[in-house]
């Protein structure tokens, strides 16, 4: 985990030194982003190109825009929770503390949005680590793919930052007391 974070920091520095190295950004993105891997995602590539203009807007001749870590982690946390296969977020201890904090301080869900999210934000890029809990019966592959897609889309769309990587760790599996967790709440489209 620290290893991957180190890589990003180095790459961010490299990009900061050569602001026009679009190729570097491209290869970096294709490794970490499933969206741009194959021709099947022709539309994904087309859509992902719009935030690139936004990157340029973050650093202008007449000033720069800085986005705080908390902003990115809040967006990422809410985006991950939008996926139906995500039961809750955070590691065991922080989940327990979060529930306790919510009872004691009557914190809203929004205040807990950043639970289970840690981010590293540079001038034009962001790397995101997410801890999720899914349900028994869900495909972890599918849930994490959907989380990754949605987090990238929301963060890039709302902040203009380029998301270099979304590392997901599945920390626990929720088992419904009634038996089949999937049957209990069918969300048919």
């Amino acid at each position, binding site marked *: 985990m620290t290893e991957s974070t180190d890589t990003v920091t180095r790459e961010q520095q490299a990009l900061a030194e050569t602001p026009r190295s679009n190729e570097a950004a491209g290869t970096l993105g294709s490794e970490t982003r*499933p*969206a741009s*891997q*194959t*021709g*099947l*995602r*022709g*539309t*994904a590539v087309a*859509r992902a190109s719009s935030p690139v203009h936004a990157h340029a807007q973050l650093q202008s001749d007449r000033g720069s825009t800085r986005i705080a870590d908390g902003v990115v982690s809040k967006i990422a946390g809410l*985006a991950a929770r*939008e*996926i*139906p*296969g995500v039961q809750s977020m955070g590691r065991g201890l922080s989940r327990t503390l979060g529930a306790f904090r919510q009872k004691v301080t009557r914190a809203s869900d929004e205040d807990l949005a950043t639970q289970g999210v840690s981010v590293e934000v540079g001038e034009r890029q962001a790397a995101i680590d997410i801890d999720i809990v899914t349900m028994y*019966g*869900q*495909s972890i592959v*599918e*849930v994490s*793919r*959907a989380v990754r*897609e*949605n987090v990238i*889309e*929301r963060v890039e*769309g709302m902040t203009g930052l380029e998301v270099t990587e979304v590392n997901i760790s599945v920390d626990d599996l929720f088992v419904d007391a009634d038996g089949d967790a*999937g049957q209990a709440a*069918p*969300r*048919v*489209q």
Partner: protein
Amino acid sequence: MSRALTPRAHLATEVAEAVIRVPGVEGLSRGSGQEAAVQYAGGKVLGVQITDQHIAVHVLLNRLPLPPIVAMVRSRIDEVVVRHTDGGAVPTIDVLVEGVELDHLPRRREVVL
């Protein structure tokens, strides 16, 4: 907040709609074992799985024989996929028949010696 579907969810929705319209298809199935679905923000498309090189649909049919229905399902998915890929790599398509729901079983012919 915009609720635009991700490209994968968009493709999954179109695949599901195309498959359901095929005569002989009763519906899509969540699959046996782990849930077969494409998830997106705020929902999921049950019975369809999509990865970069692969599409799988889990169907319930209501008519026999199966091969012509399956062939029709496959060609409808093909049409949707071709529209989405724009000449890029075309994924392989798996059709999984999870069950057959018949009002009446085909009558067995008694063999009289």
